[in-house]
């Protein structure tokens, strides 16, 4: 650390180059912290558990090729036929399939008044067996009983009086203690619904919605010409089940089947835009790091070329090669530390603005520590090659004419 004082004095005497590098490092740090935070949040979003037994699920839409008053009979027959297949474990129909971005969201209130708003939630209305088919885990209360489960030509919102919610939604309904949610009544559009059970996870239909852990399920499926089916295959029999169900349903004249996919495809398609933006974020972050490292490399190289004679003098006066390397490493650490210090201030200010504009979470403290370590290490990697070349400057260069 003996070099620290002369380094600070030298930097202060010719500060333009180092100052520009400090600014560059500060900008890189600011962006790295905030973009890194956004990227990791996105990563968590993309890998958020859906609550479904995804590996054994497939979904499709199929019409009911009968008159409307026969919809219920047809659908029940379809369920019965599908369940007879040895490869199928369970089947149900739903108003929307998770992660397909097509569905309904509604505001939940504590009373009839809209002013008692609790939260917005993704809405599912499903036929019986949905807990088994989707592989949901009921953690409090009960499943819907058979008497509650209905297929109806009316709107399920009118027919329902009970509902199940996800744990994340329960935490909004009972912020003090989510386990007290069962038995409570919530209101949607002025109608009361009693909560009878809580499932651990059931992701809403919109992958990009940050609140998509909050879902509500109604026990009534509204019958329409087109039904969305979800089928759970026995372990290891997904492909077989998909083929058998397709063949079975297509025996019905006038049947049209569409969007016939394993759930892995649904997840992949649903998160594609987010994965693309994550890739771009990571690419921008890496690009920025490379530019910063090149800047550090360039500054160090320029400083060394400019001070080639001075390095020769230091060598002549007794500096060992290691002492020269150490000098430039320490100088780089000083510049980088100033950059990080300025970057911390800028990153906090930017994060406050981003929190206002994009409803982001504040950047946790460990991001600053990791970001500082990354920038310091990157800076050292960038400065070592020019520092080593500086160490190889011959001490004899001190005696050469200017």
């Amino acid at each position, binding site marked *: 650390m*003996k*070099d620290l*004082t*002369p380094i600070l*004095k*030298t930097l202060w*005497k*010719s500060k333009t180059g180092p100052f520009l590098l400090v600014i560059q490092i500060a900008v890189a740090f600011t962006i790295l912290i905030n973009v890194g935070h956004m990227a990791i949040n996105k990563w968590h979003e993309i890998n958020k558990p859906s609550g479904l037994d995804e590996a054994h699920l497939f979904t499709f839409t199929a019409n009911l090729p009968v008159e409307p008053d026969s919809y219920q009979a047809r659908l029940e027959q379809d369920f019965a036929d599908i369940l007879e297949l040895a490869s199928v474990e369970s089947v149900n129909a739903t108003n929307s399939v998770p992660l397909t971005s097509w569905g309904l969201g509604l505001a939940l209130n504590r009373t009839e008044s809209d002013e008692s708003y609790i939260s917005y939630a993704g809405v599912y209305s499903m036929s019986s067996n949905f807990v088994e088919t989707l592989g949901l885990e009921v953690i409090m209360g009960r499943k819907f009983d058979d008497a509650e489960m209905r297929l109806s030509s009316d709107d399920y919102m009118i027919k329902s009086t009970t509902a199940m919610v996800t744990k994340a939604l329960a935490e909004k309904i009972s912020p003090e203690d989510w386990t007290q949610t069962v038995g409570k009544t919530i209101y949607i559009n002025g109608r009361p619904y009693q909560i009878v059970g809580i499932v651990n996870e059931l992701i809403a239909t919109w992958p990009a919605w940050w609140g998509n852990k909050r879902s509500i399920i109604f026990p009534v499926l509204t019958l329409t010409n087109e039904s969305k089916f979800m089928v759970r295959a026995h372990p290891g029999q997904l492909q077989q089940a998909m083929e058998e169900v397709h063949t079975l349903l297509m025996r019905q004249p006038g049947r049209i089947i569409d969007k016939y996919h394993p759930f892995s495809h649904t997840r992949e398609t649903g998160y594609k835009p987010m994965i693309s933006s994550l890739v771009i974020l990571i690419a921008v972050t890496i690009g920025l790091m490379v530019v910063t490292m090149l800047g550090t490399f360039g500054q160090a190289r320029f400083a060394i070329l400019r001070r080639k*004679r*001075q390095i020769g*003098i*230091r*060598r*002549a*006066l*007794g*500096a*060992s*090669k*290691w*002492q020269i390397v150490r000098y430039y490493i320490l100088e780089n650490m000083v510049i980088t530390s100033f950059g990080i210090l300025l970057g911390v201030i800028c990153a906090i200010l930017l994060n406050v603005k981003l929190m206002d504009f994009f409803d982001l979470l504040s950047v946790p403290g460990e991001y600053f520590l990791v970001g500082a370590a990354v920038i310091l290490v990157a800076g050292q990697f960038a400065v070592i090659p020019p520092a080593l070349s500086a160490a190889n400057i*011959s*001490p*004899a260069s*001190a*005696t*050469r*004419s*200017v």
Partner: protein
Amino acid sequence: MLQTISENAKGYNMLKMRGVAKSFVTKTVETQALQPFDLDISQGEFVAIVGPSGSGKTTFLNIAGLLEAHSEGQYYLDGKDITGLSDRSKSSLRNQKIGFIFQSFNLIPELNLFDNIEMPLRYRTFSRKVRAQRVMEALEKVGLAGRKSHYPQQLSGGQQQRVAIARALAGSPSFLLADEPTGNLDSKMADGIMALLKDINQQGTSILMVTHDMDQARQAGRVVEIRDGYLTEQQLALTA
């Protein structure tokens, strides 16, 4: 032909060279910059090295100052054989045994006089207090104690060379290596620097000085001429 230059030794051999030679090898050509020679310089001697440009003076100085390795022979500095020493050991020897004075002063422009003189001391294990004491003593010797916070560019050439001498003295070296110390100075300033060097020599520090100026060479006790890579001792008439 081995040249042997070893005379009027005052005492302990500060510098002892035996069969030392230097050649540069490129892809196609080998150039013999210094022919094999023997040389002894004793403690307290003031030796001037003279010779025309390109004769090998700087190469000799670089070898004597451990800035460049010799190709053949043995070189003992203060009794220690430096042949085959590591770069680190040579750096340490340069720092502790040799004080350098360069033609173009070679001060660091971003550092003030105090920091310039302190710089080589930082490569040693001196405490901050000892370093400060040595710097101030050196500055006093060259008469610039009052200007320690000035920067080199605020001084005249003669003053800058005095700072360089102070830097060379601060480490208490076994001998000073001066490369054309007055080459960039006018005659008045040059006289001042020569007087300072003689004064330092009289206090017991050996000096090896490369110069073009025969008048200055005569002020040294001994003159060695290098011509076309050959070292020869010059017998000069004593000046009044």
